[in-house]
């Protein structure tokens, strides 16, 4: 995105003027206000017309906040738990207890890692079977103690490796889908970055599915889709558009419940603001879901999933 560099330069100039202004020698406040308004307008315009593929790049932006950036902003007292009690502890999947407005919740979140070492440790956010099993273990723990479950989705996809296949990653994902459809506590899934296919869905079966404004959610990566359907790497942008993977498109299609606004220019420009929006949405939905009985909750969840799909009915002959 060329725009981003222009906007960044403008932002830097405004900061420079602010510093000058702060010296107290000249009063630049009205000029600054004007420039700020201009920046806001340009940014909004720029991001509104973003191509879907640009949106994908934004959802993967190296500065984009990850789960561990949001968690301390939104929750009190995060207490991480580890391990699937079977095989290992997947660092691409972090889970733990936290407080949301005095209430205990279980957090299940995918985490990519920021530094090269952390990226490696966390497999670039690609969860492995031990991660999905850890997630399920703590979701069952949450169910036992009636803690709502909040999942934060951010993964290019489940990790494709020999070990993953040896550990029956298919079975691990499938099992989570089935178990989450029956979990007897309120569940909310939020795509905060990349919603990469089955690897995202495996912690994404919930009473509410929400997306941050610039997050994406797709059945396959645009790169993978272009390679398979077009056999042409030049068609990635076209594939991104075709897949309908943006929050706004998925909301239109009725596949997600709500879009959570990000700070102007993307969540990385203002973590606090985006986190505040996220928190408001969580509290609002949790408050409604908690008012339902378990029976109502499970019935609504079941109806939601039972009727997902679009097809044409043939007239009886």
């Amino acid at each position: 995105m060329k725009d981003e560099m222009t906007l960044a330069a403008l932002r830097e100039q405004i900061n420079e003027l602010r510093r000058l202004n702060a010296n107290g020698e000249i009063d630049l406040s009205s000029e600054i206000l004007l420039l700020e308004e201009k920046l806001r307008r340009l940014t909004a315009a720029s991001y509104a017309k973003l191509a879907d593929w640009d949106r994908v790049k934004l959802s993967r932006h190296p500065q984009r906040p990850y789960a561990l950036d949001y968690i301390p902003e939104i929750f009190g007292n995060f207490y991480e738990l580890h391990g699937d009690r079977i095989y290992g502890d997947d660092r691409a999947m972090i889970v733990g207890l936290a407080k949301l407005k005095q209430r205990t919740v279980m957090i299940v979140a995918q985490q990519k890692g920021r530094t090269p070492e952390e990226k490696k440790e966390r497999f670039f956010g690609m969860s492995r079977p031990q991660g999905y099993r850890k997630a399920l273990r703590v979701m069952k723990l949450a169910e036992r103690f009636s803690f709502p479950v909040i999942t934060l989705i951010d993964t290019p996809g489940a990790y494709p490796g020999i070990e993953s296949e040896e550990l029956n990653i298919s079975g691990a994902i499938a099992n989570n889908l089935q178990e989450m459809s029956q979990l007897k506590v309120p569940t909310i899934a939020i795509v905060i970055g990349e919603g990469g296919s089955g690897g995202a869905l495996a912690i994404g079966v919930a009473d509410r599915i929400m997306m941050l404004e610039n997050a994406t959610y797709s059945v396959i990566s645009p790169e993978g889709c272009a390679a398979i359907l077009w056999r042409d790497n030049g068609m990635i942008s076209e594939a991104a558009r075709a897949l309908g993977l943006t929050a706004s498109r998925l909301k239109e299609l009725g596949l997600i419940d709500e879009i959570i606004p990000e700070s102007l220019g993307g969540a990385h420009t203002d973590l606090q603001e985006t986190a505040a929006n996220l928190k408001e949405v969580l509290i609002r939905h949790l408050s409604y879901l908690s008012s339902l009985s378990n029976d109502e909750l499970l019935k609504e969840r079941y109806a939601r999933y039972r009727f997902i799909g679009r097809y044409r009915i043939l007239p009886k002959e």
Partner: protein
Amino acid sequence: MSLKDRDYFNVKLERQDDESLWLKCKACSELIFKKRVRENNNICPKCGEYFFLTARERIESLIDDKSFTDISKSIIADDPLNFIDSKPYLKRIEEAQANTELADALILGSATINGKGVIIAAMEFRFVGGSMGSVMGEQICHGMEEALRLNRPFILISSSGGARMQEGVFSLFQMAKTSAVRAKLSENKILFISIMTYPTTGGVAASIASLGDVIIAEKGALIGFAGRRVIQNTTGEELPDDFQTDAFALSHGSVDRVVSRENLRDELSKLLSFFLEAE
């Protein structure tokens, strides 16, 4: 059996459906009378190689003669995303329909196996790679609901590359949909037998196909989540010879049994007898 490259994948799925009376086995290079092959469960009578089975042939090979009644819903694919790649999605569907004489990539019906009533469904790989979109998802759920209503076991034979890309997240969510309905079978003590064949991969492997009370892999099946190429490109790992084969799935605990095509029907009958009241 080696699954070293994509070519093998293609050979396994090749369907010599031309007018010719003869067929060439890629495994032993013999020219064989096609009728003899078809009558032999599409197994090479010379070398035992399994040829591709259509969904209809598959079901017929497992059930009692003439016991099949189609119970699928009268639905066909919609195009919620207006998806166009090399051709428009609905055009692709029409071609597949013409080519296979099926409405979508799944056949669903009620039938009997050695007199035991079942609901049975089979995926058709020739129909857009057996991919699961909204229609297949709905048909599978409908089949499970019929199994519930009639108190009959549900049998699903998978042959699929995964979720259908052209329906985007609608396809992805069919994984959740079928898994949620599958849970109702558990609650109500309805048996679900999953049979995995060549290939059972991607979103189908990672949802309904892996949720069988009993999971049977057909001998020679390909079973896995990620494709070989993706794994090699992402990890640079050297894949073992038996990677994602039936034997691999069995030794790693993912499936209950590996059964040869010839025995599949008898195995099913035997297995069913444990779950049905003495009749």
